[in-house]
């Protein structure tokens, strides 16, 4: 499996008490597989995603990405692993206002020390793949919400990641644009053999064939078993 979350536990202080967000959460996503994660608001979906994306250390459990156990890694090594093996898609397609669409992608290569002719070509190819080849020089303010999210998806794929994690990528889009973004995300992930985990409030937008899991009481369960 490309992404393995093994017995993840996360708790946070809640006044004088402790609030358990995740307990014994297990999840495995294979290469090219797309998994949709649902759950009630505040159930810990984004926390699980943060743990999977090495943005947050779990209190217990292991995170294995593309064969590397991140649990024992220091901060720098975790940052480097995130940069090289993880692609992130955010809720509102957080883009840098000063950068054009293609520069949003080139920045990822620059951060990872690999901005060369090959990276520039890849950035152009990814924008073509998400249907924005003609909008390369546009800045975020000149793009629609759907276009911005497609740039965000292309950016997540820029570093040829083993894992893509999407945090409610359609939350800021209308239904049609949301389905479109989901379809692009799923098809590009499958085409590029990337393990993809999509957190969503709207499972209807998930492409057909997507494995669906649900976060319930701090644990990841088969969505069908809970939701029917």
């Amino acid at each position, binding site marked *: 499996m490309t992404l393995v979350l093994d017995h993840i536990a996360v708790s946070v202080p809640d006044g004088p008490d402790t609030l358990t967000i995740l307990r014994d959460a297990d999840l495995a996503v294979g290469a090219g597989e797309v998994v949709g994660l649902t759950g009630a*608001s*505040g159930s*810990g*979906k*984004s*926390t699980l*995603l*943060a743990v999977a*994306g090495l*943005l*947050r250390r779990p209190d217990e459990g292991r995170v294995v990405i593309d064969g590397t156990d991140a649990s024992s890694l220091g901060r*720098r090594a975790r*940052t*480097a692993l*995130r*940069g*090289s093996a*993880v692609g*992130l898609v*955010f*809720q*509102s397609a*957080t883009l*840098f*206002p*000063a*950068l054009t669409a293609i*520069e949003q992608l*080139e*920045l*990822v290569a*620059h*951060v*990872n020390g690999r*901005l060369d002719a090959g990276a520039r070509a890849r950035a152009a190819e990814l924008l073509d793949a998400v249907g924005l080849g003609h909008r390369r020089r546009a*800045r975020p303010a000149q793009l629609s919400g759907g276009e911005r999210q497609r740039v965000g998806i292309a*950016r997540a794929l820029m*570093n040829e990641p083993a894992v893509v994690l999407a*945090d*409610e990528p359609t939350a800021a889009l209308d239904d049609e644009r949301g389905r479109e973004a989901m379809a692009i995300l799923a098809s590009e992930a499958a085409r590029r053999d990337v393990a993809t985990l999509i957190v969503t409030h709207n499972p209807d937008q998930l492409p057909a064939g997507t494995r669906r899991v649900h976060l319930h009481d701090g644990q990841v369960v088969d969505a069908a078993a809970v939701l029917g």
Partner: protein
Amino acid sequence: MFLALRDLRFGRARFVLVGTVIGLVALLTTLLSGLATGLVDDGISGLRGLPLTHLALQPGAESSFSRSTLRPANLEPWTEADGVEAAPLGVSFFNAKTEDGETLDLAVFGTTPDSFLAPNATARGALAGEPGIVVSEELRGQGVEVGDELTIVGPDQTLPVLGFTYTGSYGHVDIAFTSLEEWQHLVYGDDADGRFSAVALRGGDAEVRAAADRAAGTATETKAHAYAGSPGYSAETATMTLIRVFLLAISALVVGAFFTVWTIQRTRQIGLLKALGASNGYVLRDSLGQLAIVLVAATAAGAGAAVAVGQLVGDEVPFSLQAGPVATSAVVLVVLGLAGSLVAVRKVTSVDPVIALGAEH
């Protein structure tokens, strides 16, 4: 600095604004540097131009020629000291009147014709011949010419102008040289008793000087230390230094405040950058590089404008811009600006990349 350079282009209005503030501070700092150097020149350039390394004064004179009176007995041990060149030096301020009735202020230096202070045959000849006076080149610009008669007010002694020496002043007054004998006559009349202000010294090692100092009953100090004896010198330099320090501190605070606010505004962007795999080092290089570009460009522009303004300053204002002090002032401004941003640097490194994911934490 992939992001920094593009941010600079994109947010140029914001950066031009803070750059203007920094540039104005650099302009003021450089102008003050010019004024400070000009004042220093006006205060001590006459003494600085003398080829001496030390001065022996009367103990307790505190670098002031007017408080120091020495006699030939104080000079003798110095003339016998190995490796030390010594010459009596008299220094006094006088008013003089030109033939046209114009009043001049003069700091008159008196020394002997065989003194090492008279650097060439012309100077020695002028000091050895008939009584006369050699004045600062500066006075040529005020219409004084060789052969003019200057009347020294007080003793009412008339002396012909024998020539011009280097441009210099002491205590903000143009310098002039005459023989020690004539100087003594101007100051003490016929009752000089061999008195003079100080012993000018050159060379010799510290031990020899210390021994001669004890034997002569004098207090020796370096030339640079003796600058403090120039009237108003210490107060002027202290005032200028204080103003420059305040300006630099204000600049550091302005830059620090701007960078802190700018960093706070960018917190989510910084978090996103880290979430994309950027290390703290990468983010810091990007942020500080951006600030350094603004600082250096604005400081260079401000200092350049000050140099241009300096060209317009007339002779009435003591103003002198030299590459060294201007460069030092600019470098200090940049370094302090960067130091002022340290609070923001801490903020940059403490941003948690998890904030890029939004609210559910």
